[in-house]
């Protein structure tokens, strides 16, 4: 395979990077489009509806039609908004969500995966930049609901970074590496980390849901309280960016969960990318399933849950794992 990660930067290598980036962008847009379609279908079925069924056979073109509609809509900037920040916020939110995908090993051959030694750390670091975009978007809109949404998301996402980070340290301890590729290889040799790290996995999924602002932790965009939260004032393309960010993160987080706890691309018989797709889809399905069932948690309870339950449990898990690893 073309090993452009470790070789020095040349013209060919740079071109390879650009092509790889564009390919992944195309892939991820396709994935997000059908992620939204399947979310609507699955939740529809769970609610005894049939979901989208008008555009194309079985409504398969529905999401594409939605995206097209958003693209041709007018880009409205409210008069009293902080114009430059308002325009910048969706980009700040989206770019990290796309960057983290570079770290996920989709297949055994790592065509598009950066084989960096600090992959996991980089994922967590990049994903927290998105919070800045959301807070800025909420603040710059100069709308009271947006402001409340932005405030809530800042508080929520900062608190849940900590249990999220702690829950994965157990995996790092067992592997002895922050490199995501190494973690998957280690799992394919021994056992999926979901078994020794079941507590870590549960905390990871809960904190992950909170990071994603998804039900039952969708306070920042709680439509019954804050209309649409931080993106109330956004429309058209910039609104699409926020939606895209949200769904790319759904995919990225499920991919990360697969990589860290479910053995990544490893599995018998089938090609590695199919194994990866199956495991990630299962995680995504779980997220949609939770969305169809749960009511929304309350802000103060959310904080209490993070600081009083998740972090102590994650710490205990960490200590036990450290003890086991030491032996």
């Amino acid at each position, binding site marked *: 395979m073309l090993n452009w990660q470790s070789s020095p930067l040349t013209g060919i290598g740079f071109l390879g990077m650009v092509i790889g980036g564009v390919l992944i962008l195309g892939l991820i847009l396709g994935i997000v489009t059908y992620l939204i379609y399947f979310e609507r279908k699955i939740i529809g079925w769970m609610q*005894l509806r049939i979901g989208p069924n008008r555009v194309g056979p079985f409504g398969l073109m529905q999401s594409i039609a939605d995206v097209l509609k958003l693209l041709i809509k007018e880009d409205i900037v409210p008069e009293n908004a902080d114009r430059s920040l308002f325009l910048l916020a969706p980009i700040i939110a989206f770019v990290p969500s796309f960057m983290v995908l570079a770290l996920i090993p989709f297949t055994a051959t790592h065509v598009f995966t950066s084989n960096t030694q600090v992959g996991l750390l980089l994922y967590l670091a990049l994903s927290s930049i998105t919070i800045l975009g959301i807070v800025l978007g909420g603040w710059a809109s100069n709308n009271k609901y947006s402001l409340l949404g932005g*405030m809530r998301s800042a508080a929520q996402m900062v608190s849940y970074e900590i249990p999220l980070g702690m829950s994965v340290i157990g995996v790092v301890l067992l592997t002895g590496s922050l490199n995501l590729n190494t973690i998957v290889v280690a799992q394919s040799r021994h056992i999926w980390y979901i078994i020794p790290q079941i507590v870590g996995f549960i905390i990871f999924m809960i904190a992950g849901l909170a990071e994603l602002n998804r039900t039952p932790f969708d306070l920042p965009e*709680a439509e*019954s*309280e804050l209309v649409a939260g931080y993106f109330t004032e956004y429309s058209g393309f910039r609104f699409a960016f926020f939606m895209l960010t949200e769904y790319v993160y759904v995919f990225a987080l499920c991919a990360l969960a697969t990589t860290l706890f479910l053995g990544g691309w490893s599995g018998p018989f089938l090609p590695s990318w199919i194994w990866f797709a199956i495991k990630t889809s299962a995680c995504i399905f779980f997220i949609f399933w939770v969305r169809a069932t*749960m*009511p929304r948690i309350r*802000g103060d309870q959310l904080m209490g849950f993070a600081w009083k339950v998740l972090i102590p449990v994650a710490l205990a898990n960490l200590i036990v794992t450290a003890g086991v690893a030491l032996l």
Partner: protein
Amino acid sequence: MSTLRSEEMILNVGPQHPSTHGVFRLVVTIDGEEIVDADPVVGYLHRGTEKLAENLQYTQIIPYTDRLDYLASMINNYALVHAVEYALDLEIPERAEHLRIIVMELNRIASHLLFVGAYLLDLGAMSPFLYVFQERERIVQLFTEICGARLTYNYMRIGGVKWDAPPGWLQKVREFIPFMREKIRMYDDLISGNEIFLNRVKGTGVFTQEEAINHSLSGINLRSTGFNWDLRKNQPYGIYDRFDFDVVLGQKGDCFDRYWLHMLEMEQSLRIVEQAVEAIGDGLILGKVPKLIRVPAGEYYAGIEGARGELGVYIVSDGKDKPYRLKLRRPSFVNLQILRKLLIGQSMSNLIAILGAVDIVLGEVDG
């Protein structure tokens, strides 16, 4: 060191807000997420029903009552015809009385179902809202068969009801009862045990019995504090005294009690329907009523237990075929008065939980 500057913010919740259940506006002053002051503004759906009624014959007022509490039109219909019958001292045929009880209690179930669904939607769970529409659809179809409309029934008449039950209708009602009981169990599984839901509603929006009485609350809002007051038992009207049912009471007066009483009342309503379907006999559906209904001069008040509280009709008549003045005691409007007291000091997410549990219908609030 200078202190951090903070200021209060005025936030208009409504009239176009997803969870104000219609066009209700709440001007809240918030400090961060804490509510410092709340000022409900009503009247966006005001149609002047009481004034319109002064130019209408008593029969013509019935379709207008459909549009007050549009989730429980049958009960509203009954409130008016019951007041007029009380004023005229009419005798209602047995079969008509039974049909009235059946449709009213079915309507109460439909209304409570929608409360449960909409309340959970306010709290962020979408599925219950869509599930409840299935059961409600069964009830609405029963109503379409008996009176031809899905929402604005216009079914009651002074002295009886408009239509007799079509063939097989009573059997359908009988079949609905076990179906509904099973669904109530499903909602218990889905909602009543959910910790997230319980944490949100237990202990929020508490008021005491004295406060409830001082604000003249009625219906479930009053019963959630443990005060035993149900007009169906305490001032029996119609033939309610013949049926065996319990008045379910709450203990703490919080949002959970109000949710829970809605679930329990559905079960009690099913019991009443069950007994009424068995007890119904043949006979007339419309009693002897004069062609032109003139209420003798005087003042009359009749209150019934609506889906949301005491629904009263006060008629001032000068002996003509139209009321001189018609006052409707609309329970949603009265129950809303406690909202400001409940909201002050709460957070924004509690606002929705409390407003939802007070259970207002804007058609009724604005009249």
